[in-house]
């Protein structure tokens, strides 16, 4: 009986690793995308994704299957991100100036005179939008990313962030206004051209 118990435990661990390898394959790309938007650079994004999967694996017994795995993973990731920003005690404003130096976030601004279409404008706004996101508090950034980039409903965002729908509504609204102010200040021409194209 003793050996059966040990054997079962080993079998459970093997099953869990196999399951996680599948879950990693299914979700690592969108998870990396969110981590990149949250942190603003490739190296921190990889660390965040890695930490999230390891935490998810360790606490898998707490996973409530009523929530999609990706939502649960995002909850772990956003908590880890908010904790990390708080631990550092400052916003990631320094990395705004440094982005692009590691080769991971280099944007080539298109020549707007020769290619004034919306897709090109959107591409050229990617960098200022990312900078605007990084200038916000992690709570606002997370709410805006989940709602606008991931396309989640307020209730799903509230579920992931473990807060009320009212708080989510307020964070998204204030977050969007901050991004808009940033774009109007730092990329006014491109942003206005983009809005006119719509």
């Amino acid at each position, binding site marked *: 009986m003793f050996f059966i118990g040990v054997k079962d435990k080993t079998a459970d661990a093997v099953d869990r*690793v196999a399951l996680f*390898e599948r879950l990693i394959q299914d979700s690592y790309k969108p998870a990396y995308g969110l981590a990149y938007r949250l942190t603003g650079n490739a190296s921190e994004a990889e660390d965040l994704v890695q930490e999230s999967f390891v935490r998810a694996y360790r606490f898998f017994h707490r996973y409530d299957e009523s929530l999609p795995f990706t939502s649960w993973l995002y909850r772990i990731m956003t908590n880890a991100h908010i904790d990390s920003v708080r631990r550092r005690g400052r916003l990631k404003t320094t990395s705004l100036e440094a982005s692009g130096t590691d080769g991971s976030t280099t944007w080539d601004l298109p020549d707007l005179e020769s290619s004034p279409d919306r897709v090109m404008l959107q591409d050229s706004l990617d960098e200022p939008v990312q900078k605007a996101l990084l200038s916000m508090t992690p709570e606002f950034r997370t709410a805006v990313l989940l709602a606008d980039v991931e396309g989640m409903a307020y209730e799903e965002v509230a579920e992931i962030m473990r807060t009320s729908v009212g708080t989510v509504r307020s964070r998204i609204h204030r977050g969007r206004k901050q991004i808009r102010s940033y774009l109007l200040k730092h990329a006014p021409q491109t942003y206005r051209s983009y809005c006119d194209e719509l």
Partner: protein
Amino acid sequence: MNCKSVQNRLSAYVDRELGGDELLQIRAHISACPDCQAEADALRSLKFLLNGMGCPEPPEGLSERLSASVLRTRIEDSRGSFRITPLMFAGVAACSMLGTLLLINSGLGHRFFNGHSKASISEMANAPKSGFDAAFGSDSSAPIISAANFGPR
């Protein structure tokens, strides 16, 4: 509803997260207020812009590195946390009981039953039928004889 109150709800309006009277009031206000209409359009454009942002491609070999991290976690966990599960406990308890029974059978039991008088055995023989006996109709003397066999000869 004034402009400030409407503008605080415009993101939720653009996201179709409002319902009932709130939705109707905001819709009515916007149709009559160019400033709030412009604000709603601006928020809609921004939402569109954010929604169209590309998903950054993960670096080469990321999934393999993630799998390796999870695998390392398993090794660390199995080294660091040895816990007695209920199944292990049940196994140990069953072994202990079996050992005790064997001990009783092999000699210690004789000493134990020596302590009982013949009178007490006969009292047992006259005891009412157990639920098991009553249910399965066994001869009431049979189990008593086998119990008496534990006594000295």
